[in-house]
Every structure is written in structure tokens, then in C-alpha cells.
């Protein structure tokens, strides 16, 4: 069981999208859409709290695996994340990614919150901090214009080294 109380928000990204909450919800939970803006990954989610959540490579391999913590369409979608598709990354503790969708005028306010249960080094947080703006900018363009511009994403400098270091030190096992 994931003890949600042990997780603290480390990265928050807010973006306003000219669309209905239902449209943004589909953008986050339908693989037809995620493939177009989420680095090519297809979301594969059991539509219920407690269901399985995965992000799949185009060839079907699992990139991210987790569990749905909250499935409340079209308001809140929260799940745990474990990166399984990259060697060693599966030994990092899981994080929690939560999307909150609120009406805001004729648009919606989408808030992405990435939470962690340990003192994650800045160099590792930088991975999400560079990735989320690209991903969610793509979602907004896709929903508003029908096309998501291709945004090349690469791990920021020092990211891979920081992950390697964390995997050898395992700071999350210290009390």
C-alpha cells in the first residue's frame, strides 16, 4: 500500500487550457491523445481507483507502471509512478503524479503535482521540471489546436549521474 501521507509535493506546474474539463480529462487518460504529446507514450489505465496505470512505449513495452490512487472524472486523476523501462530506475522509490482539473472562466486550470516520499536531489527533480512544461505545453496545443508540436526531450545535465548515485546510496532507506 502507498502511504500517501509520507509524500510531499516537490514540483507543481499550472497551465490554463481553453477547453472543457472533459476534453482535458480525455487528453490525460486516452492513449490516442497521450501518444501525440507525451513523448510518444500511450497511457494504459484501468478506469477506477485502485486500478493499474501504465505508460507504454510505441512497441508496447512498459515505461512507467503504477496504481491509480484517485480516479474522479473529470476532476482528479492521481497515480503512483515507477519507471520500469530504464535499467535500474525501477529501484528508485515510486512517486505520485496528480492532475487536478478545475473550471476557470471559459477554460480550465490544470495543476500537475509531483510528490515524493524522500529527499530527492535537485538534479533528479530537474528531470520532471524540464519534462512537465514540454509535456503539458503539448497537451494544451493538442486540445486547443488539434496538433501537438514535437518537442525534443532529453534528460537535463547531471540527471543520469544523480540517479546512478541515488541507486547506489539508496538514501530513502535511511530513517
Amino acid at each position, binding site marked *: 500500500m502507498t502511504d500517501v501521507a509520507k509524500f510531499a509535493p516537490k514540483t507543481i506546474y499550472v497551465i490554463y487550457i481553453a477547453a472543457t474539463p472533459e476534453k482535458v480529462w480525455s487528453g490525460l487518460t486516452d492513449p490516442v491523445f497521450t501518444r501525440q504529446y507525451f513523448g510518444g507514450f500511450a497511457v494504459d489505465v484501468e478506469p477506477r481507483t485502485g486500478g493499474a496505470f501504465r505508460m507504454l512505449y510505441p512497441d508496447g513495452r512498459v515505461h512507467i507502471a503504477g496504481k491509480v490512487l484517485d480516479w474522479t472524472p473529470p476532476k482528479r486523476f492521481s497515480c503512483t509512478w515507477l519507471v520500469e523501462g530504464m535499467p535500474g530506475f525501477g529501484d528508485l522509490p515510486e512517486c505520485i503524479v496528480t492532475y487536478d482539473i478545475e473550471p476557470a472562466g471559459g477554460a480550465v486550470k490544470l495543476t500537475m503535482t509531483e510528490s515524493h516520499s524522500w529527499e530527492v536531489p535537485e538534479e533528479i527533480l530537474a528531470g520532471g521540471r524540464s519534462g512537465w512544461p514540454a509535456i503539458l505545453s503539448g497537451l*494544451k496545443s493538442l486540445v486547443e489546436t488539434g496538433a501537438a508540436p514535437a518537442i525534443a526531450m532529453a534528460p537535463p545535465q547531471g540527471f543520469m549521474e544523480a540517479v546512478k548515485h541515488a541507486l547506489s546510496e539508496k538514501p530513502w532507506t535511511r530513517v
Partner: protein
Amino acid sequence: MSKPIFVYVTYIAAPPERVWEGLTKPDVSEKFWFGYRVNADGKPGARMTAFNPAGKQVHDDPIIESDPPRKLVYGWKSLYKELPDERPSRVTFTLEALKGQTRLTVTHDDFDEGSKMFDMISKGWPAVLSSLKSFLETGRGLESTWDEEQRRHAGQA
């Protein structure tokens, strides 16, 4: 506690020149910046001015650096009497061209610890920059929801 820094990155499907216009020309800003006329078209040493939709001046800040269409830095002190009276902070816009798109990074820093203005700009920039992106990609900016959100959060408190 340390001095707070706000950083926001957005990708816009438009060239840096158009993003630059949106950030510096009042005739463009009023179409997405919720009716505000923001003029930051000058050289370093000139002023950044902003007028609200009612025509009241709300900014008169120094332009610190201007390298069109790559980098713009100006001071930030609101002239609204209702807002916290804090010393000026600083806004830096960095525009990078990427295959027909622009990666726009807004860094708002030089706040004192515990700044109330920091909380306000942290809520404000995502709305302004989302509207800029919509405007440049679809021709239509977003509506301001500042008042609506303030009311809702006041109701929750």
C-alpha cells in the same frame, strides 16, 4: 527559508519574434494579457510601463536588459496601492528558438523571504503565459479568472 524564485517554462508554436512582440508591445499585450497594455519596447535604461484595462498605470519599472528577441529583463514593482508595499523584484524572459517554436522561460526573483508579492506572481504568471500561448497559436487569448479564483479560495479559507 531562502529567498523565493519563481521559474515557469512554456513552449509556444510561434517564432521568438512573435513571442517578443507579445511581451513588449502594448497593442499585442492587450489582446492576451487580460486587457493590460504592457510596453517594454525600449532599450536598457528606458521604462517598462503597464496600464490596466481601466487606463490606470500599474507599472513604471526600469528595463535592465533587452536583447531582442532573446532576452528581456525588467524590474517589477506594482503601483496598485492595495498590494503589499515591497521593494522591486526582477523578471527575466529568455526566448530560445526550437524548430519553429519558442521555449520561453520566465524567472521572477530578487524577492525577500516571506514576500507576499511572490505568492501573487506565482499564481499570475501561469495564467498570463497560458493566455500568451493560446493567443499566438489560436488567435484568441484566455479570459482572466483572477477574481473568480480569489473568491473561491477566500470561500475555502
